[in-house]
């Protein structure tokens, strides 16, 4: 591998979290962005073709070395590492709404989910997947929630824009109002 790729590997390896490109760039101020990108793809390819147990992933606005999924079961069975708990469907629903509508208040989330979400918000806050990002105007100035960097990391998203836009989803939301609703068959 080239010296730059080696340096990047060392730095990425030294971190448990994704490293943004900006920070990788400061490792070698002489290197251009193009050279940096080249070294990253060299590293990625090396992992892929030389039969490694790890791979290079781009997520949450940065780069991170992760193990390949085929070893996960074995590693967990040997009790050397454990996967984080899966989120419940209800937690995922709450998270999905917040990801798309942020900043959003609790009342709005409850309106969409049709259930109260107080406990769920607390869980998501504790897991660091959402955070208070502000307060709304109006009575009581309710708290507004948004997703965090850790959310991107745990769902391996490069950025929020990677989520499909509403009009790319299979279920199209019709314009509200009775006009858009089909008349009952008479």
């Amino acid at each position: 591998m080239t010296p730059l790729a080696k340096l990047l590997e060392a730095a990425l390896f030294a971190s448990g979290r994704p490293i943004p490109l900006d920070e990788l760039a400061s490792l070698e101020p002489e290197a251009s962005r193009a050279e940096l990108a080249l070294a990253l793809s060299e590293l990625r390819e090396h992992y892929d073709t030389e039969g490694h147990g790890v791979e290079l992933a781009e997520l949450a606005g940065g780069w991170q070395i992760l193990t390949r999924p085929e070893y996960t079961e074995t590693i967990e069975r040997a009790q050397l590492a454990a996967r984080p708990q899966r989120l419940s469907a209800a937690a995922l629903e709450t998270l999905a709404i917040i990801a798309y509508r942020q900043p959003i208040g609790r009342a709005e989330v409850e309106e969409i989910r049709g259930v109260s979400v107080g406990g769920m918000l607390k869980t998501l806050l504790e897991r660091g997947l959402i955070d208070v990002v502000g307060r709304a105007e109006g009575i009581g100035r309710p708290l507004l929630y948004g997703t965090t960097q850790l959310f991107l990391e745990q769902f391996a998203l490069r950025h929020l824009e990677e989520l499909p836009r509403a009009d790319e989803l299979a279920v199209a939301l019709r314009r509200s109002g009775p006009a858009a609703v089909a008349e009952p068959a008479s």
Partner: protein
Amino acid sequence: MSRNVRGAERAITSAAPDFAADGSFTVELDHFSGPLDLLLSLIREEQVEISDIPIARIAEQFLLRISSLALDEAADYLEMAARLLRIKAQMLLPRSGDGEDWEDPRAELVRRLLEYQQMREVVDLLEHLGEARRNRFARGYLPQEPVPPMAPLALSLPELLAAVDRVLRVAREPTMHDVVPRALDVDGAMETIRAVIALRVRVRWGDIIRREAEPWEVLSALLALLELARRGELKLAQARPFTDVEITRDAAGEAA
């Protein structure tokens, strides 16, 4: 997106062994993450269009289901049941006019169901992405690295002042309390205390508040005492900490 929306099937199959991480009572115990989820699943079972729900039939099914699943203590489900029955009643009303300006009572429900269904599609995606990431480990052990030195901070006074301004703006907003179990009656307590000290020059706390008084009464009496002391109508004294408060009629105040 090529992924199919299979809201109902999903709800029944994959939501089953849920970890309700917060331990609170959640109805997902029974595979549904809420009334909208249950409703969508019924619509699918009955193979009807969301935009044209046979409301009477669906309402009946909904009620049947929440009783058989023993969900009936869940307020969210009951609220939806009530809503369905209300829509059903509205549908039975004779239409005024000839359909042109008739507003379908189901319209709002349809909108919510579509919105919910769309969100479930995102949930499918997140579940897929989350599972893919969950199956990869990041480096678990970071041994030799000392605590990385922190990057320097970029701070500016204008930024700090702007923050002060934001804080003041919020602080100026009146705090809203939605729960007022019992209003305080400070005026009433003041009248009581005045009556008591009119009879006796020196009284004790126990003379102005009954033993089994409720918190609001205690608080009212306390505020009344402080207010009367402030107005100079009485004096408060405590010989030692934790001893009884002595309340004496203030001669000067009386003269005023």
